[in-house]
């Protein structure tokens, strides 16, 4: 008999997405308030303001923080336990694809931080770590465990 679909991916994904949503919301708020109250160390390498006010903080005029907010809002829905229990390939692979989109974005932003902006933003790094964890759990659970059978909550 196939293993019962475990609960941990949904649990980890939901918690990380909720945390990511919070951090992205904070960064979005700071973006629209001139980042004047952004709580972050400033010692050269670690410099949130330099990152969040750089030209790379927007993509086609849209703040990256806002895109992060959108990413985590959608991901939070996709990571909810009832949605994990849905067997449809669209949901399973849609969630995986969304996680890959997030991963590619954070790799690009990490590259920009390291090689273009020359500074690391701790809040952004937090978002990157959360996105990576969500990617790992989603990838592992989607590829390893067969689709849940039957009912949808």
């Amino acid at each position, binding site marked *: 008999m196939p293993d019962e679909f475990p609960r941990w991916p949904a649990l980890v994904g939901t918690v990380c997405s909720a945390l990511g949503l919070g951090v992205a919301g904070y960064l979005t708020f700071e973006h629209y308030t001139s980042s004047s109250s952004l709580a972050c160390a400033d010692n*050269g390498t670690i410099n949130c303001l330099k990152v969040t006010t750089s030209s790379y903080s927007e993509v086609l005029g849209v703040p990256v923080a806002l895109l992060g907010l959108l990413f985590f809002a959608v991901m939070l829905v996709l990571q909810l336990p009832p949605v994990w229990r849905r067997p449809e390939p669209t949901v399973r692979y849609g969630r995986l694809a969304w996680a890959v989109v997030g*991963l590619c974005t954070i*790799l690009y932003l*990490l590259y920009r931080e390291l090689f273009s902006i020359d500074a690391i933003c701790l809040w952004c790094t937090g978002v990157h770590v959360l996105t990576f964890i969500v990617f790992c759990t989603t*990838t592992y659970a989607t590829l*390893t465990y067969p689709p849940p059978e039957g009912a949808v909550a």
Partner: protein
Amino acid sequence: MPNPSTRPGSQSKKGSGPNAAKNGGSKSTGPRGTGAKKGAKKTAATTRFAERQARKEEEARLARQERNKRYAFVTIGLVIAVVAVLLIVKFAGGGSSTSSTADQPSPPGGTPIPAATLAKLSSVPLSTLRSAPTTGILTTPQSASGKALTTDGKPQLLYIGAEYCPHCAAERWAMYVALTKFGTFDPEPGRIHSATQDGNIPTLTYYRTKYSSPYLAFNPVEVYTNYLNSSGNNYVALETPTEAELNLWQSGNGGSFPYVNFAGKAILPSAQYSFADLQGLTFDQVAAQVGNNATTAGADIDASANQLIKTICTTMTHDQPADVCS
């Protein structure tokens, strides 16, 4: 002894065992018993087949699960490897980023400016610069009598500014136009703007640029960035002037931005034109107006660049190169 399985109706239970076909009792059965036996055999075969299939499917499922698990681990491992490579290249191979931002080889600050834009800025005809109306000029370089300022035997042009400073933002345009008549930048300046709360004037930055010229040395010091520190009470520091530079700057204009020293023989104590003439324009709009004396920004920049060129020629390069200084 007759086998109980020969009794009609009992074949489905007892005849389905694996030894049922070998059982001697089957010889004494009638036509109906033979059919039941065949049915039992068929059922047993079907069951064995189903069990084998189920086992195969389970094995295949487990193998698939193991394979997918490997894929997942490999994918995650690859991502970790990519991040590790980025970090290694940055912090081990590609130059470190430390708290001291001076003297570090790295790409220029700001956003890279398209080569076509830079080429346009560096190729404004001298005739255009010389014919620019000077109605917007507020300050011109003043002669000074300080100690000669040199770098490696070349007269040094010292610029002290700040990325947040809108006056510096205005002056940098003219400086780029003028300096590229005497040499080249590599890395080139990047595109920035003065602080958003301080005019938000589009400009370029000389932070992490390198200027080469057979006639003069250019020493830019961008003291502050264009963004505030975490407590919001000051701009984040970028480069620190030396003691000697600090003294020149303090005595030259009291330590305000921008400050330009022409090898100790002349100084520019403030921006030559008002940054207000650039306010509201984008970087590309300003760049497009450079060399166009019919526009306010273009005329201001061109006239300022012309003043800088004249001062460099007379105080620093002994009117060299001739095609620029004549």
